[in-house]
């Protein structure tokens, strides 16, 4: 039962990415191409998601436990460090090269795209490298 809600969340997230246009790497790149024919759509995906998410976090902040009785795992780290910037830059370069970030890569995998399989394999390898050397 608990697991069902995680599955449901993943499904809704994926359908949101599809409807929002995030599962089309060409559209993502058109959003990142400020100097070209700029497609601002994806800014509105964030604009639609953030207020709803903000309400959820506000609600969660008033509760000690989730509705299923799990502890609230909210990040407690506050310090701004170089890792955030360096990690963000590396991620941004990868995002700009292919137009794919982690969520859409999994949705694309579900469409059966071979290119998504290769991307996801490389992404997992990158995460694995971090586990081995980056920590």
């Amino acid at each position, binding site marked *: 039962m608990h697991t069902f809600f995680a599955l449901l969340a993943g*499904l809704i997230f994926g359908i949101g990415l599809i409807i929002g246009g995030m599962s089309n790497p*060409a559209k993502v790149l058109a959003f990142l191409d400020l100097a070209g*024919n700029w497609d601002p759509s994806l800014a509105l995906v964030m604009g639609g998601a953030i207020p709803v998410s903000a309400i959820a976090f506000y609600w969660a902040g008033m509760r000690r436990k989730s509705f299923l009785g799990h502890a609230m*795992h909210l*990040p407690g780290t506050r310090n701004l460090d170089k890792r955030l910037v360096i990690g963000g830059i*590396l991620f941004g370069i990868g995002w700009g090269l292919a*137009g794919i*970030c982690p969520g859409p890569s999994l949705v694309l995998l579900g469409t059966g795209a071979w290119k998504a399989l290769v991307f996801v394999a490389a992404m997992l390898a990158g995460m694995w490298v971090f586990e081995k050397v980056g920590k």
Partner: protein
Amino acid sequence: MNIDWVNFTPYSALAGGVLIGLAIAVLLLTHGRIAGISGVVSGLLHRNKGDTAWRAAFVVGLIVAPVLYGIFSALPESRVDASWPLLILAGLLVGLGTRYGSGCTSGHGVCGMSRLSPRSMLATAAFMVAGFVTVFVVRHLIGL
């Protein structure tokens, strides 16, 4: 700046965004977890008891989403232009960068921004600027 009004899809973008927000709400209010995709996925790389099922279920949901969507309606156009070597390089950078920076577009860009987390604002600024610059260099300087 030249805006591409033909391909601008404000309503579906907003609707998709609202759904993403709802999904974040569902995972947070039922499991007490942040729907940061890179974090959820990387947590599967090392198995901790009791911490695997929800992650796997969430990932399965994302992968199955287009299949479910396809039953009711035709999937919107999706095109990957990047070459194979570029895809591999991009995937490696996305995997490494999201772990090193503790998050991606969902964890920092949506969840963190909606909590007004200074860490997420910094990370989001870093990956957005890097994304803009990368596309500028690739398309307008190198001309790939």
